[in-house]
């Protein structure tokens, strides 16, 4: 019952979004003319992220998603005569630049902040606390939430994603206890989920974590892959970015180690969290990406639906190229902009002054019947004082014939609640 209600709501919101997009600029012009007589307010939002520099392959489409959605909101007068002014600045993945950007945003007046990397989110955590600034980063690191009141993850943390993948392994593995290795980025971003997976195992998740590999800039992973195989590893869960995963998959493919079906005996099944997958992985790994399993909370365009139709229409409306339009990180950017817009809409609807305090309060109340269904994700966005991860639901995808396809239905990891 709950599920059908959820689906109905999703379709409704998506349809509304589609209508808005297809109505186009003419409608926007009409509404603007009609409302110029009343006093308009401008809400100041800001985003600092890596549009260039390391990880800009994710940051670039993310920025476009944020920019396009706010443009759409303003053009369609979704906030009535009020407008959103979102300043987007490139920090090249440098924490000192992010901090400087944030300080300048604050000096100019800021109602809601969107951040990007794990490093800068951790580095600026105290600043967000001092400023009491509601902040949504693109980093899903669970550590962002420790000793923090104002950081809200858009979707399930990397820890929840890794645990979700581990649960899938345990539930679908045939034979004795599955042997798993983790392939992680040598940073807080990569290391974060390891201890949580270990806690899940301690709490009863029936798998053996054989080894945690912190990768470097490897040209050849033969030694690592052979070592894991010799230790009986059957599954590798990755928490890093696409490039090292692509190199590993190519090497595994060359050595004929990739499982062609999930859990194939004597081979390795490769799985990964949000930033390991998507079209960029297929672009880098080519045919070697086949049978890679990936989890995220976002919809993807290789699985068309109302949400992806809306995403593609939005990208088309603002002249984005196909690569950006198809990117799950474009959806990621759209989604955080949707959440911020929804908070403003709700604060206005309650007759509150729109500022960082009221928007923070709206985030905290986004749960239960007030949960938000953005259609760019596979589940609702829910926040509360004790739950700062937005979309708890995950979807597993696998590469089949060169495109990610859904595997099963959306799920919420069980062990995240047990650790």
């Amino acid at each position: 019952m709950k599920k059908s209600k959820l689906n109905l709501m999703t379709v409704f919101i998506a349809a509304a979004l589609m209508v808005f997009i297809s109505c186009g600029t003419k409608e926007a012009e009409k509404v603007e003319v009609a409302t110029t007589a009343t006093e308009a307010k401008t809400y100041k939002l800001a985003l600092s992220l890596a549009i260039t520099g390391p990880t800009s392959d994710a940051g670039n489409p993310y920025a476009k998603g944020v920019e396009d959605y706010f443009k759409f909101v303003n053009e369609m007068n979704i906030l009535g005569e009020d407008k959103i002014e979102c300043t987007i600045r490139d920090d090249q993945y440098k924490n000192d630049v992010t901090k400087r950007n944030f300080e300048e945003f604050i000096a100019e007046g800021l109602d809601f902040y969107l951040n990007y990397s794990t490093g800068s989110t951790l580095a600026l955590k105290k600043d967000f606390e001092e400023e009491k600034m509601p902040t949504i980063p693109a980093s899903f690191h669970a550590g962002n939430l420790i000793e923090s009141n104002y950081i809200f993850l858009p979707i399930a943390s990397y820890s929840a994603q890794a645990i979700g993948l581990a649960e899938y392994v345990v539930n679908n593995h045939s034979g004795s206890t599955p042997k798993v290795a983790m392939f992680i980025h040598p940073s807080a971003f990569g290391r974060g989920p390891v201890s949580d997976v270990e806690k899940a195992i301690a709490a009863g998740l029936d798998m053996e974590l054989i080894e945690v590999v912190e990768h470097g800039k490897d040209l050849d992973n033969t030694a690592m892959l052979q070592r894991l195989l010799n230790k009986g590893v059957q599954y590798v869960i990755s928490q890093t970015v696409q490039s090292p995963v692509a190199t590993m998959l190519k090497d595994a493919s060359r050595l004929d180690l990739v499982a062609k079906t999930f859990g194939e005996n004597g081979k390795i099944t490769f799985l990964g969290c949000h930033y390991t997958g998507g079209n960029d992985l297929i672009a880098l790994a080519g045919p070697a990406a086949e049978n890679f399993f990936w989890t995220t909370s976002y919809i993807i365009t290789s699985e068309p639906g109302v949400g992806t139709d809306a995403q593609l229409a939005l990208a088309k409306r603002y002249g984005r190229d196909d690569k950006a339009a198809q990117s799950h990180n474009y959806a990621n950017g759209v989604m955080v902009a949707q959440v911020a817009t929804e908070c403003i809409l709700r604060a206005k609807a309650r007759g509150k002054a729109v500022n960082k305090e009221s928007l923070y309060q709206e985030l905290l109340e986004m749960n239960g019947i007030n949960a938000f269904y953005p259609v760019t994700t596979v589940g609702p966005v829910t926040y509360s004082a004790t739950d700062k991860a937005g979309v708890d639901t995950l979807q597993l995808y696998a590469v089949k014939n060169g495109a990610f396809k859904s595997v099963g239905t959306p799920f919420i990891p069980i062990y995240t609640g047990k650790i």
Partner: protein
Amino acid sequence: MTYFFQLVVSGIVVGSIYALSALGFVLIYKSSKVLNIAHGQIIAVGAFITYALTVWMGIPIFLSLILSMGATFFLAMSVERIFLRRLIGEPIISVIMVTIGLMSILDGLVYLTPFGTENFSFPVFLPSTPIDLGGVYISWTQLMGVIITIVMISGFSWFFKKSTVGISMRAVSDDQLASMSIGISVPKVFGLAWATAGLSAAAAGTIIGNITGLNFDTLHAFGIVVFPVVILGGLDSILGAVVAGVIMGLIQQFAAGYLDGNWGLNGTAEVLPYIILLIILLIKPHGLFGIHEIERV
């Protein structure tokens, strides 16, 4: 034993690619005593040009590689002509600072193209089934990388030892004033050194891009990754780059194969090359094959 030989083969493959990447540093340093910090960016640009010619213009990849090498030849030569020629005779630190600036400029220019923020991969042009050497596997891409490396390094070795221009370049490296006094054009030699480094960068970039996929951050990082190789081999020795490249490749593979994951060790493949580098430099401060100049006062 198969495992051991697999690690040896992988080590040699990786080492060869390191050697080819390091060659650009050596070629420039050998002639002009300049350390080009922007070499990683030229490696990346070379890979992108090969990709663009192959995929966007439909030119066969081997021809694209040759054209790309030609393009980076002229790119590097132009860089030397525009930015570095004026600095002949200036303190070496000034020249190195210019190459750091150059790195930022090239970064900025690449970010203006789709290659700055998007990922690509070369089309498959070699058989995907690896070569099986009695249970030891090597991919065609890796084999091609090794062959290109051997050809290029042999060519450059011959060039420096036997050709008039190569000998002139060595002479300039040895003593600029003495070289000028016998009619060698020092600026031309510098330009040629940069150009040949550009040539090797395109080859290295294309090989690395075929292995890792085309990601700007990954590609230009190899300018830094191969730094221990350059220092270990000796900044001015082509043979040193080859030997040090293979040593580093083997150390990394053996560390990953035998140390990582055992006794609580992790990431030794990343750290060990630097530890070995430090130890060797303590014993041989100019690297394994670097020239130790003695100045009489």
